[in-house]
């Protein structure tokens, strides 16, 4: 009985993690840390923006984490992790210099070729900014290949804003239209308050020339999609990234299924037109 050709180089040993050293840890918010990682053998992760890795800590297991850095920035890659469970909690306790295991990259990322020469409307809701940042920085590193760039970012409170240094850089970048909002401000907050859809009302994208890339928690999609449709966006000009419980990362364990598809194989990035009719998608 013949064995089919293997798809990618990592399929040889599907479940064996590669060791990576934590070279830098930054506390971004009360619950999120940014880890910079380098493979011990010096190799690149070689990922597409929007892909994820399985982070392995022996004794705890594995967790799927989106890659937050752009592949244009070589030598290392970054993972922004919220302490939400036993593995991520353990990861938060790891100091710089520790080693953990990485499998991947897995999944279908953002199609950077398809988006070339288009105007881009990035919509990041809360933690959705984490995978979106990978694509935003990729686009900014290849600025000439893309049209207008508008970044809309919404968080619950000012304390929960991620990557504040970079937000400042995007705000100061003359080739970027950056807008931010929080659901509830605090005493120091001078900016816009309201949910992320309130930012969408203020922009006037050309629906034929623009692709909207929206990433956020499940509840956000419903309202953002309505908002985009009211701006005459075509279904196939809307890109989303959906979170599911990825375990094996290789389309076998079944936990990430949305109806007939495995999110770890056919996603997590999807063109809205291809999944809008899947009952379990939203």
């Amino acid at each position, binding site marked *: *009985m013949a*064995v*089919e*050709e*293997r*798809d*990618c180089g990592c*399929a*040889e*040993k*599907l*479940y*064996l*993690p590669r*060791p990576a050293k934590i070279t830098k840890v930054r506390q971004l918010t009360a619950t999120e840390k940014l880890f910079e990682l380098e493979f011990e053998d010096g190799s690149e992760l070689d990922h597409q923006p929007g892909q994820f890795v399985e982070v392995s800590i*022996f*004794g*705890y*297991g*594995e*967790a799927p984490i989106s890659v937050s850095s752009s592949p244009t920035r070589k030598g290392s890659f970054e993972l922004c992790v919220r302490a*939400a*469970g036993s593995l*991520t909690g353990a990861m938060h306790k790891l100091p710089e210099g520790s*080693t953990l*295991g990485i499998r991947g990259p897995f999944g279908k990322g953002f199609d950077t070729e398809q988006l070339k020469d288009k105007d881009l409307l990035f919509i990041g809701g809360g933690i959705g900014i984490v995978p979106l940042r990978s694509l935003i920085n990729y686009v900014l590193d290849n600025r000439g290949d893309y049209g207008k760039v508008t970044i809309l970012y919404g968080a619950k409170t000012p304390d929960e804003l991620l990557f504040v240094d970079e937000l400042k850089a995007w705000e100061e970048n003359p080739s970027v239209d950056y807008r931010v909002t929080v659901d509830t401000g605090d005493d120091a907050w001078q900016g816009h308050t309201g949910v992320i859809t309130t930012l969408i009302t203020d922009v006037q994208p050309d629906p034929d020339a623009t692709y909207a890339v929206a990433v956020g928690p*499940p509840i956000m999609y419903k309202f953002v999609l309505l908002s985009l449709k009211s701006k005459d966006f075509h279904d196939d000009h809307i890109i989303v990234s959906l*979170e*599911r*419980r990825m*375990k*094996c990362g*290789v*389309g*076998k*364990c*079944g*936990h990430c*299924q*949305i*109806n*007939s598809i495995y999110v770890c*194989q056919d996603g997590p990035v999807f063109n809205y037109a291809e999944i809008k009719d899947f*009952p*379990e998608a939203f």
Partner: protein
Amino acid sequence: MSDRLLRTGDIARHCGVTTETVVSWIKSGKLAACSTPGGRYRISARDCVQFLREYKMPVPEEWIAGDQYADRVTAEEKSRMDQLVLPKASMAALVAALKKTYRVFGPTRRGRSTAFDEIEDPADLQLDYTSTILPPKKFVLPPKEKLLDFNIKTGEAREPEQDDKPVAILGIHPCDMQGILRLDFAFSRGHAEASYLDRREKMLFIGTSCNPDEYCFCDAVGTNKFDEGFDLFLSDIGQSYLVDILTERGRDVISGLEMQPVTDIDLYEAFKARERCADHPGRKLVPKASTLALLAKDCEDLDLWEELGERCLACGTCNLVCPTCYCFDVRDELALDLKTGERSRFWDSCQLDEFAEVAGGESFREKRANRQKHRFNRKFRYMAGEYGAPFCVGCGRCSRQCVADIDIVEIANDLEKAVADL
């Protein structure tokens, strides 16, 4: 080829019993016989010889020499003929031949049911069975399978070595063989899994014809195939098996055994044995298998699923006993030294509450109704579309063993009825 036919009187005289006794042997299944149009029993000399040998009675020379052809085939004939006969009395020899190369597993009695177990004593083999508690998928995808050995202190990790001796399954039914073929598909596509495929490549499968019950529906989903996946297929023809040699590996197994040539009666009996899967009592699948995918699609929003959700206990039994379910969970376990440990995968079930939960506690398939719908869709629509045939193999295990009496054939029939009523 023809075979000498004996009458009940011939046998009665030789054994020193009445013809009534011989008839009672036939009726109780101990002695194979066919009947003339007038209702008289006729027994082939060869079947009678095997019967006498089985019960350790002396055999008259002329009955052995009575065949036009030699009682046994030659080694040369064995190397080129694709169909031969193996007496049931030779099962012990077959098991012994297998055990030289393989660990042998076959159906054995377990309480009031049947289960696949390792065969040490051929007498334990229970080849005359309908279904087992767990399907033979447990041999290609163990309920618990180690993926890695790891050491927390050193950070090292290793994949485990494969077992030395390959496995032979003796007595697998066509539905279960089709189940294994579908698992092969699942583990070859996309990221091909080396550990599954390496183990699978070394396995030997000897199929046997089945005695279906009212839960079986292999013919309705097209899985009563006798020549796919097996190395040998044994059709039960009474005192013997008609052996179909389907691979060279299978041929090697029988190379040392005494086999007999095939007669027309043998071919006919084998055909009848296989036809049992198509013609059996109990519920029938009403919709055609080819329409099930569309049926599932049209019935997305029906109340029928809500009713099923109410009855379902979300125990996961249906997934455990299904030959084509392969979803798994992965967990780390530490040894007592808290330094070394294992990462293993365990059978999991999409019917369980936690299956579709993400960090933060949200579940993407919270309602049992949706999980029942997902299972049905996976077997008859999603995976069926990818594979090109229903992923359900019609073994009936889920229906037979569901604690809540949920029956997959009834679901399909109810969907068909609901659509007709719309």
